[in-house]
C-alpha cells in the first residue's frame, strides 16, 4: 500500500510554474484589494479628515521599514529574481502576526462594523496561504527549501495597552502600512512574471 500511495503521488501531475505564479499573483491582488477596502472603511469611521492627509506620522512608522526591500523602480529593475521572491516572502512573513494583533484590537472597538472585522479576518487568513504559495514558488523556481515558520516574530513589539486615541492611530497606521506592503507584494510578483515570459522588455 505504501508503494501504491507513492505511485499515486508520482502520477499526480504537479502544477506548472506559470500556473502557480499566476495563482500567487491573483492571491496577492485580492489581498491588496481587500486591505485597501479595510483601510478606507477604517478611515471613514475613525479618522478625522485632517489626520488622513498625514500618513505615517512620527512615531507610527511602518513596521517593515527596516526590511531591506527595494523601493524604487530602478532598484527593482536591478534586483534579481531570487531577491524579488525573497523580498515578497519577507514581507508576507512579517505581517502575519501583526494582522492577528490588529484583529484582536479591532474586536475591542464598540462600533467597529462587521464588514471591517470580516475583511481583516479574511486578509489574515489569506496571507497565510499566500505565504505557503510563495514558499512553494521559491522551491520550484529557485530550488530552495524553506521553512514556513515565522522567523520575523521579533519585528513586532506589542506595547502595553495604549490609550484609545493612540490605539486608533496605531491601528490606522497598521492598516495603511499593510496596504502599502500588499501592493509591494503584488508588484514584485507581477514583475517576476514578466521576467519569466519576456526577459528583455520588462524594463
Amino acid at each position, binding site marked *: 500500500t505504501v508503494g501504491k500511495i507513492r505511485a499515486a503521488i508520482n502520477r499526480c501531475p504537479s502544477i506548472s510554474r506559470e500556473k502557480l505564479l499566476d495563482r500567487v499573483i491573483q492571491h496577492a491582488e485580492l489581498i491588496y484589494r481587500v486591505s485597501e477596502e479595510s483601510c478606507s472603511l477604517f478611515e471613514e469611521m475613525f479618522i478625522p479628515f485632517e489626520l488622513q492627509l498625514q500618513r*505615517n506620522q512620527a512615531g507610527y512608522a511602518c513596521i517593515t521599514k527596516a526590511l531591506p526591500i527595494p*523601493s524604487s523602480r530602478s532598484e527593482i529593475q536591478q534586483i534579481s529574481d531570487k531577491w524579488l521572491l525573497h523580498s515578497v516572502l519577507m514581507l508576507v512573513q512579517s505581517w502575519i502576526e501583526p494582522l492577528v494583533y490588529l484583529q484582536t484590537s479591532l474586536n475591542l472597538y464598540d462600533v467597529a462594523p462587521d464588514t471591517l472585522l470580516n475583511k481583516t479576518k479574511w486578509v489574515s487568513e489569506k496571507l497565510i496561504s499566500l505565504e505557503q504559495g510563495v514558499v512553494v514558488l521559491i522551491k520550484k523556481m529557485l530550488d530552495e527549501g524553506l521553512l514556513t515558520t515565522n522567523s520575523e516574530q521579533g519585528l513586532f513589539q506589542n506595547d502595553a495597552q495604549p490609550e484609545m486615541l493612540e490605539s486608533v492611530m496605531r491601528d490606522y497606521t497598521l492598516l495603511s502600512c499593510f496596504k502599502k506592503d500588499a501592493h*509591494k507584494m503584488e508588484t514584485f510578483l507581477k514583475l517576476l512574471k514578466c521576467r519569466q515570459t519576456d526577459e528583455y522588455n520588462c524594463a
Partner: protein
Amino acid sequence: MGCGAMMKSVMEVLLLLMLFFTAHAKEKSYSPPEKPTQTRCRSPEKETFTCWWEPGSDGGLPTTYALYYCKENSETVYECPDYHTAGENSCFFNKNDTSIWVNYNISVVATNALGRAFSDPVDIDVVYIVEPNPPEKLTVAVMEDKGWPFLLVSWEPPHKADTRSGWITLIYELRVRLEEEEDWEMHHAGQQKMFNIFSLRSGGKYLVEVRCKPDHGFWSEWSSTSYVKVPDYFHREKSMWILVAVFSAFIFLILTWLLHMNSHSLKHCILPPVPGPKIKGFDKQLLKNGNSDEIFSALVVPNFPPASTSKYEEMLVEYLEVYVLEEQELMLEESKDLLDGCLKSENSRSDSDSGRGSCDSHTLLMDKCGETKEEERQTNRESSLIETQGWKEEAINHDTSGRVKTWPSVYSPLPQYGSNPLDKQSSLETAKQHSLSTSSFLTQAGTKDALGPSYTDFCFSNKQNHLHPQTLAHRELQTRSDVNISNIGRKRSPATEYVEVQRVNKEDMVLLQPVVSRCGHIEGCPNLPKGEDYSKVKGVDCDNRLLLQREGTGEDVCPLVDQETNGEGGNCYTSSTVSTTQKPTACMYTSMPLQEETALTLNGYVDTATMSNLPSC
C-alpha cells in the same frame, strides 16, 4: 595733491551714498515673501513624479524658491534635483530619485532679500499620486451582429504606463453620446482595452471618449474624441411595421363590421334578458305602486281550492280499486283511475306500489292467486267459494294515507282447502277484518254534506270501524257459516244496501244477494238509496267483472252484519254513488248484459267501494 582730491572723492562717495539711500527711501515697503503653497504632486507612471507649488506674494523683492524634501525616517534633506523640466514653480523627480512605497516630506521655501517663507510640509507616497495620461489610439468601428449594428471601441494605454509588466494596473472607462445630445452614456470597461456598444440609433453620429485610472490613484483626462456614424438600417424595420399596422387596421375594421352585424345576437348571448315574473294575475304596476294587498289579492285564483262538494262524490266513487288476480289486472288498472280521481285534491300519488305492504304485494297476490287457481280446479267448489269469499272479503284496504285500494289479502289459511270449518271461519274472520278495516271510506264520503272537513275523515275513518267489523265478522260467520260474505261498510249517509255473496256458480261467478235476513236486527236500516246514486250489480261476467246496472229502484237490502258498528245504519253498504257520473259503472263493468245465470241474485246493490275481489274464472 593733497586732501582736496580725497575730499572730492569722499564727497562723491557720500553723494552717491545719499543718492542711493534716497532712492531706496522712495520705494514701497519691502517685505519678506509670503508662504508658498504646494498645489499638487503627480506621477504619471509611478516611476517619476512632479510637484507644483503656487508662490505667494514676493514682497517686492526678487524671490527665489527652493524645494526640499526628506525621505521617510531619514533625516537627510535633499533639494529638488530638477526645477526646469516640468515648468515653472515645479520640481521634477526622475526615476532615480523616485522611491515607491516611501513617504516623502516635501517643503517649499521662498527666499528674498528680506526673509524666508516656508510652505506647509506635505507627505506623499508616490503610489497614491499616480495620475496616468489618457489612453491613446482610440478607434471606433461599426460592426454588425445579425443585422443589428454595434460599435467596437478599442484603445491603448498611455505609452508611458508600464502595464505590460504589471508595474501599473489600469482600469478604463468610456463614454458615448450622440452628436445632438448632451448627456453621456458611461461604460466601465475594467482592465480590457476594447468594448462593444449596442442599442444604436440608426443613422446617428456618435462621440466616444475613454479614460483610465490606476488601481489606486486618480483618473486620467478624457482622451481625444472619436467620431463615428452609424449607417441607416431602420427603414427596413419601418416598412415591416407599416405593413403590420395596415394589416391590423384591416382586421380591426372587419371585426368591427362583424360585431355590428351580430350585435343583437351577441347581446343576447352575453347579456341574456332577465326573465320577468310571469305570475298569472301578477301586475308589475301594482308592485311598483307598492300596495301589497292589491297585489296579493290579484294573485288569488278564483275557484281554488275547488269548493264544490259535488265532485267529492264522484271522487268517492272513483277511488275504488279492485285488485284481483292476474287475469283481472285490467280491472285493476281501471280502478286506479278512480282512486286517483278521489285523491287528486290531496295530491294523490299513485305509485306503483299503491301503498301495499310487502305481504300484500301484487305479485305475491298473483302467486297466491295462481296457486289458488290451481287448487280451485282441484278442489271443490266450496273451497273455491271460500277462497273467493276470502278474496272478496278483503274489500278495500286503504292505507293510512287515505288512499283506497282494494287489496287482495293474502291469508295464510287460504290455501287450506277443504279443511276444517274453523279454519274457514278464521279465514273468513280475518278476511272480514281486512275488509272491515278498510271499509267504507267511500261510503262516508258519499255524504254530500259531510264533505269539506270530513274528507279526511272519509279517508281515514275505517280505523274506527276496525273493531266493529270484527265482531261483525264473527256474527257473520256464525250466521252464515259457509258462503255468505258480506261486505261491511259503515256510513253515515243514508242507508245503503248490502249485498252478499250468495254463492259462486259454476262459472265461478260471484252471486250477490242482498242481505235481507237480518234486516230486522238492525236499527238503522238503510234507506233505499236513491236510484240514481247507486248502481246495481247486475252480475259478474265471465271475465270476472262486476256488472253494475244503473237502477233507480233499489230493493230493500238490509245490511248484513252489524248493528253495533254504527249507529247510523250499520254496516250498510253504500252502493257506489254513481250519481251523475258514469265512471264507476264504466269502470266496474264493461258490459251490460245481464247474464241469466246471475240474474238470480243480483238484485241487490253493490257497494263498489267495498267490492271484493271477484273470483277468477
